């Protein structure tokens, strides 16, 4: 029951993340949406991996722990990219409109 509840909630959160990623213009918002999506994927990974009586599968836990750290490293790099883009263009977005305005 717990597993079903969390799988369903994580699916909805994933959908919300996709929606946020598509409607966001600001790059920081896109990164937030991506992080929300990755959180939901981690939940599903753990629940689906199952495991024995002593808690969830340790290999799945280790992989998710690795994923959390990689996610923060990628986010930090993406934020540095965003700041560079902002310095160059004065915008924190990469929509097609930028080209039309010039």
């Amino acid at each position, binding site marked *: *029951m*717990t597993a079903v*509840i*969390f*799988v*369903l*909630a*994580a*699916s*909805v*959160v*994933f*959908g919300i*993340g*996709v*929606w*946020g990623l*598509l*409607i*966001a*213009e600001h790059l*920081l*918002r896109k990164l*937030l*949406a991506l992080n*929300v999506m990755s959180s939901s*994927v*981690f*939940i*599903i990974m*753990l*629940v689906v*991996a199952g495991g*024995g009586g*002593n808690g*969830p*599968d340790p*290999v*799945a*836990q*280790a992989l*998710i*722990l*690795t994923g*959390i*750290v*990689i*996610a*923060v*490293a990628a*986010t*930090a790099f993406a*934020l*540095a*990219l965003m*700041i560079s883009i*902002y310095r160059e263009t*004065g915008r*924190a977005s990469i*929509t097609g409109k930028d080209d039309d305005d010039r």
Partner: protein
Amino acid sequence: MLSSHLIDLVLALGMVVLALQVVSERAVLRSIILFVVFGLVMALAWTRLKAPDLALAEAAIGAGVTGALMMMAWRRLLIINPREPADTPRGRSRVAIPVALLAAALVATIGLSALFIDPPTDTAGRIALDEMVDTGLGNPVTGVLLLFRNLDTLLEMAVLLIALLGARAISKPAHPNEAAVVETGTPLVGALLAILVPLSILISTHLLLAGTNEPGGAFQAGAVLAAGGVALVLTARLQPGDRPGVIAQVAVTAGLVAFIGIGVGVMAFGETLLVLPDTWAVYVIETAMMVSIGLTLVLLFAGAPALVGRRT
């Protein structure tokens, strides 16, 4: 039984509502703050799913460090151009809602069908749990990270280092104003730091040592250590510098060097690559990793190649 499902339902509902607010909130700063709250609810969800290691990691790294990085980036944007409107217009996409619904349905289908097939009995996790008895480590997650699948962990350290080098390569020298400074004349700041920084060192050391037998480990410890460093950067006790010193370079690469050194060194004694000899090797590598992770995260937060103490 019913009440425990009630907790699950509340947590699940909280995740959904907070995620919705994170992506739909108009002010970016509020989105970031709500994301931190979302991360903390996620940490509670991990404890409900009996994964305390992940709860610690989510609270320290997912919510804490990511939130701090996001807020710092937002602050930089405002410093580069103070007239930037705080609320950016949101783009419209006609396909957004259908695509999101399809994505959610796809993930739910995959998740639920994976849930209802018969679980395989001979999984890597089961083998790892069986082998744990011989290792002298009590925490199976640490066992998997440091002994059974340590190539993953080694490469993960490499990814952290590459992220730091990449961020350093693309960022220009920081604007002088961008050095985060709060009012340092207040005596309370010093008193606060005198509590926070030793506490972060104490907690991270505990997480590191406890991590071999209980929930915790190098990653959680490194993130808590980074929190102390972030406090020092925010109060300008540590300021962005131009050139990293020898100590900083050694500290940033210590985890990778210790891991590779011991992992390759065992081959001289006829062992296979990356088969760690004993528990002491786990402790040495985890300590080096903690220092590297902590410093890497602080440097990413400060957006600078190096940190120097405040010149008085």
